[in-house]
């Protein structure tokens, strides 16, 4: 039944968008992490989507193709007293721009909301479909 497929499609979108939100939360939380387990500054993570075909159906859901790390270096900040500071007193910050992350987060949250609405509408239609012929 095709309305059931709408559910499936919307649910793939919800899980992908929540993964994106997770990555963004991690980026924001680590905006000041100058040294990770490998001793290097945190690399922001970006989620890449791709369409996920559903077997035997024309509609496609969405899935996470890759989680890529942003390899650009962040700004250098002068903090001579910092334990990670180099010889000239600079520390390498992670390349996290909080404004950018917030904008991305709003976009992810809007997409999530929209797909919840798709689910809600499909649910209402299916419930009504169950009542067909009862009247």
């Amino acid at each position, binding site marked *: 039944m*095709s*309305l059931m497929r*709408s559910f499936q499609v919307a649910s793939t979108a919800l899980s992908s968008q929540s993964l994106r939100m997770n990555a963004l939360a991690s980026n924001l939380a680590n905006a000041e992490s100058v040294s990770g387990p490998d001793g290097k500054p945190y690399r922001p993570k970006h989620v890449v989507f791709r369409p996920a075909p559903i077997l035997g159906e024309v*509609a496609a859901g969405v899935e996470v193709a890759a989680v890529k790390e942003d390899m650009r270096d962040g700004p250098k900040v002068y903090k001579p007293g910092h334990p990670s500071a180099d010889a000239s007193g600079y520390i390498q910050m992670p390349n996290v721009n909080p404004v950018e992350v917030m904008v991305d987060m709003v976009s992810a949250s809007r997409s999530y909301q929209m*797909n919840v609405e798709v689910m809600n509408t499909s649910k209402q239609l299916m419930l009504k*479909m169950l009542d*067909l012929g009862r009247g």
Partner: protein
Amino acid sequence: MNLVPEFDPLFFSEAALRMRGYRQQILASNMANIDTPGYKARDVLFSQALREQVEGTAYSNALPLSASNDRHYRIGGSLPGAPALLYRMPMQPALDGNTVDVETERSHFADNAVRTEAAMTMLNSVIASRRLALTGNQ
């Protein structure tokens, strides 16, 4: 007014409902892929799709194509396949090649949902009138 409709209303409403569900699925996948790079928004031409559905099944014995070999196409006599999926004309495509426009998709989705309900109401009234004819309002 034509008292005997061209198509059986029960059958017509069912086909309409099926196509509405199909379109709902297409629109849902457009909205799911709103952030997918390179995704192109798709849709069906509803009037054409419904006509194909109704005519394909209603006149399934029209112009049968004889297939004498396994590799011949089989047209007519079988249920029509899925309607052709078209690409939506992009209004403002994104730089990553995505052509899903939120407003367009949402308005089409809402429109489709309302029309699905309308088709269900029609189907309900057809069923109700058949039932009335069967029971004689007993």
